[in-house]
């Protein structure tokens, strides 16, 4: 079986790859969001501490 035949998924390419793509999107979004949020929070608290120290 060649590659384009594989990606064709027996004619169900749209349904199969859209399902996997959406799943990946949900996973990435919910993984990146809390990591970025935590970094931002720590930076904000650090800035406030600096201000207070002055």
């Amino acid at each position, binding site marked *: 079986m060649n590659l384009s035949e594989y990606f064709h998924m027996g004619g169900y390419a749209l349904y*199969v790859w859209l399902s996997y793509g959406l799943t990946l999107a949900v996973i990435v979004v919910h993984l990146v969001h*809390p990591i970025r949020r935590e970094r931002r929070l720590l930076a904000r608290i650090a800035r406030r501490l600096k201000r207070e120290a002055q």
Partner: protein
Amino acid sequence: MQWLHRLASPKHFYGFAGTASLWLGWLSLGLGVAGLYLALFASPPDYQQGESVRIMYVHVPAAWLSLFIYVCMASSALIAMVWRLKLAALVANASAPIGAAFTFLALVTGSLWGKPMWGTWWIWDARLTSELILLFLYLGYIALGSAIENRETALRATGLLALVGVVNIPIIHYSVEWWNTLHQGPTVTKFDKPSIHLSMLMPLLLMAFSFMAYYGAVVLRSVRCELLEREQGSQWVRELAGGKQ
């Protein structure tokens, strides 16, 4: 019990959540890579559904996870209400958006599977409708939590909603047996032998456990954020933030 008390302190839980999240994350990745390989390459096409059966390996784990997260969320809410454990409330609150996302995913991938197999994107049958209600329960939980200013009141209201909503869980599970539906019956969670071949069961279970580990990893990350936000005046957060400069 001593270690439990220590763990329940925000500072210790913050550290514990970071370590546990990392381990669960790697576990999820390992299971996911193995599951994906089996799901997309090694497993056979279905004799009736052809290659479209591969949607099952994301649809079913997403649907299972949507139920699993709800049970975790409702149990945490109960613990928070009965034992006044603040951490449990944070776990419940952090679970809601993740649960909503996976319920949405289960519905959409189900739609994408239903169109080529059933000939329709959507049908108001028992399984699909009860899963849609689950989505509304999650969204209701989030909306209610953010609408009420007072934390104690918010906790009681959302906790009550989460607990009442638990009745929907067995309804979703048994919907395919209680009602005549287009959705197929259970093939894995039967008491006798599952009616699915090992070559399809393996990727399904690997993906399901990968999804569960993923939930554990990201919910702990969210709880860490909530802890930081609520404890920002305390000494340990100051040290943590100050040390990162």
